[in-house]
């Protein structure tokens, strides 16, 4: 048991902190700090800055650009990114399809995709959920039928985040309708410019366009774009969804947002009821951060830790709670959410309520908090 970081880890932290705060453009980091929506270009630019220094995909195999870091070091990297307001490398690339290709893909797929994925030369989108397959993902119905050296894909995906920017889509399709539902699924990589593939926007309650539907009408996909074996897609999907133990909960960003809310609250902090809300959240967030540290420290074999569900569950709750508190600090000014630059009210008060509303998704997407409770009950508590 030791509170302090080792000298080596502290050194790494200082180096990362220095890099992130000096090499990633200030304007991008200001936009992150203010909670503004980033452009595609900004996301690409910041990931490339990281990749140029080998800091975009440290958890990948070393031969594909990874660092041979401990889980704690990866945790430090992730926290420092957030503390410095650097956009976290695009999850679809860095933590989703990249590790799947590295683990399951043929050498050819690896060479073809991994460097471009790490450098965000390819922007990946995710095609998993369907309108009738949400928490029950395995009941998906989009089909891929073999036709010569192609698969022909038909069906519909939904909740494809930032799909409007996507170059390629990694997707789960049903390749065998006659077996147990998990056993008939395959993972396909699809060029989003293929004829018959259409991306349609879904507007969310904050007014933003962040997610999309993806429709497939006889979309022809070369058979070589299959990842792993035919009908083994559920294995890849589980690997992908359970891959990460670092960064499950956005602790660093939530901490940063809480500290910012304190600044913005100003004199309202003199009210003991307000101060108590901040203190309570700050304490819960500290407990969460320490839990994340315990989880990363617990073993280094890369297997998903069961307590990851705790991090996801509590992490999203606190993320939402901080956005709620920020909204409350904005008070009546929050009604000016649609105001432009000439508003007499500060920008953060415009953003506060849409952000709160938008973040209702956090406890739904990526394995809803009900799914997390179910996982805890079954796998940890044996209920």
């Amino acid at each position, binding site marked *: 048991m030791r509170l302090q970081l080792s000298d080596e880890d502290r050194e790494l932290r200082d180096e990362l902190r220095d890099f992130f705060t000096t090499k990633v453009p200030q304007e991008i980091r200001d936009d992150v700090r203010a909670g503004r929506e980033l452009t595609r270009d900004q996301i690409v630019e910041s990931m490339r800055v990281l990749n140029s220094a080998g800091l975009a995909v440290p958890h990948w195999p070393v031969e594909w650009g990874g660092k041979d870091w401990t889980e704690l070091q990866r945790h430090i990297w992730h926290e420092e990114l957030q503390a410095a307001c650097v956009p976290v490398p695009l999850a679809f690339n860095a933590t989703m399809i990249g590790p799947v290709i590295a683990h399951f893909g043929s050498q050819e797929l690896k060479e073809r995709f991994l460097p471009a994925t790490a450098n965000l030369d390819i922007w990946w989108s995710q095609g998993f959920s369907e309108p009738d397959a949400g928490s029950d993902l395995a009941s998906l119905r989009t089909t891929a039928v073999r036709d010569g050296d192609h698969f022909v894909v038909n069906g519909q995906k939904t909740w494809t985040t930032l799909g409007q920017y996507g170059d390629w889509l990694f997707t789960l399709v049903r390749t065998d309708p006659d077996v147990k539902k998990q056993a008939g699924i395959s993972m396909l990589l699809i060029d989003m410019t293929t004829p018959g593939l259409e991306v349609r926007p879904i507007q969310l309650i904050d007014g933003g366009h962040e997610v999309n539907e993806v429709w497939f009408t006889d979309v022809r996909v070369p058979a070589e774009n299959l990842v792993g074996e035919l009908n083994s897609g559920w294995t890849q999907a589980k690997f992908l969804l359970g891959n990460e133990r670092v960064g499950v909960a956005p602790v660093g960003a939530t901490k940063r947002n809480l500290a910012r809310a304190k600044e913005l609250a100003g004199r309202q902090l003199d009210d003991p009821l307000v101060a108590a809300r901040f203190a309570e959240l700050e304490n819960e967030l500290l407990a969460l951060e320490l839990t994340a540290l315990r989880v990363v420290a617990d073993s280094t074999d890369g297997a998903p830790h069961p307590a990851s569900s705790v991090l996801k569950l509590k992490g999203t709750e606190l993320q939402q709670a901080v956005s709620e508190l920020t909204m*409350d600090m904005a*008070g009546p000014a929050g009604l000016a959410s649609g105001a432009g630059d000439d508003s007499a009210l500060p920008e953060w008060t415009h953003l506060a309520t849409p952000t709160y509303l938008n973040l209702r998704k956090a406890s739904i997407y990526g394995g809803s908090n009900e799914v997390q409770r179910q996982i805890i009950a079954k796998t940890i508590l044996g209920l």
Partner: protein
Amino acid sequence: MDFTYDDEQDALREAVRGLVGKAYSDFEHRRQTVLAEPGYSEDLWRQLAEMGILGLPFAEADGGSGAGPVEVAIVAQELGRVIAPEPFLASIVLAGGLVSAVGTAEQRADVLGALSSGERLVVLAHAEPGSGRANAACEVTATQDGDSWTLTGIKEPVPHGARADQLVVSAALPGGGTGLFLVDPSADGVERTGYAAFDGTRAAKVALASAPATPLGEPGADVEGSIATVHDIARIIAGNQAVGALETALRTTTGYLTSRKQFGVTLNTFQALTFRASDMYVSLELTTSLVLWATMVLAEGDPQAVHAAAARAGLQVARASRHIGQEAIQLHGGIGVTAEYSIGSYTAHLQALEQLLGDATFHLRTLAGTVAEHGTLEPV
């Protein structure tokens, strides 16, 4: 003590529901309405005027029908049920309420008459950047020159301020205190920038630069108390609007739970979800009770009692709005955060009502300040 409505009140509810509820029975219509300007249906507003709804709370002498708070509350409940984006609170309750309380007989007849008939939209411009929920005006100041008055400063956010035909503006008086003024928004010195709030309803920035203004009521009189009371009244009426919205939010959610399938069964098979719906129902029932009570307190008319009742209803409504609003989305899952589906807009609208009239901490602070002053709390 009697919680039941009489036949006339039931008939009023049916009439309003027949009009407003029917107009927005399809959520897509509400959505399209707030996507276009002016953010509500002028047509529906006119029909409400024709039905006599807009003049409900005003004295007959002023062009209204002199109905009581219970009737206004019924209208609010029905508007809330379909989260109608019409400017009922901003114009009838707030602006109309202040004209009614403060205006001269002539002003009342003019403004309230035009308001009741639907020919003029009059809204209150009171909130100022940085003034929180103060009842006094501070950043907008009034200047007198003989019998002429001008106002200078910024009001924001002003609900429905861009569309309004006439503004009731609060301003710091040269001799101290807060006065109210009628302002013609087309006059020189008035600049308005309108926008949609996150729930689709409209607000605006109103910049006044020596804008000509007519004192409402006695020139130079401090009417901060009237502003406070009208806000308390609006809290109780908004509470009724929230009750309507909360009811629909719960009903929509239970409807979804019984129809949406996951893992081969409908969601109401999952006890963890149905128990949470039960807790939402408990919140709703408690909130309904407190809001109806506050409405009855309002009908009795003692401003002190109304102030306390507004805080009590406000706190309970705020807690229930968060609870039910958040759970309604969560129990829906992904579809709950999409703009095309209704539930998220209910959560947003409940949030907007709260931001307009006070969140839980605001009301709790009021109540905590007096909790030591009484023993048991008696409803009558």
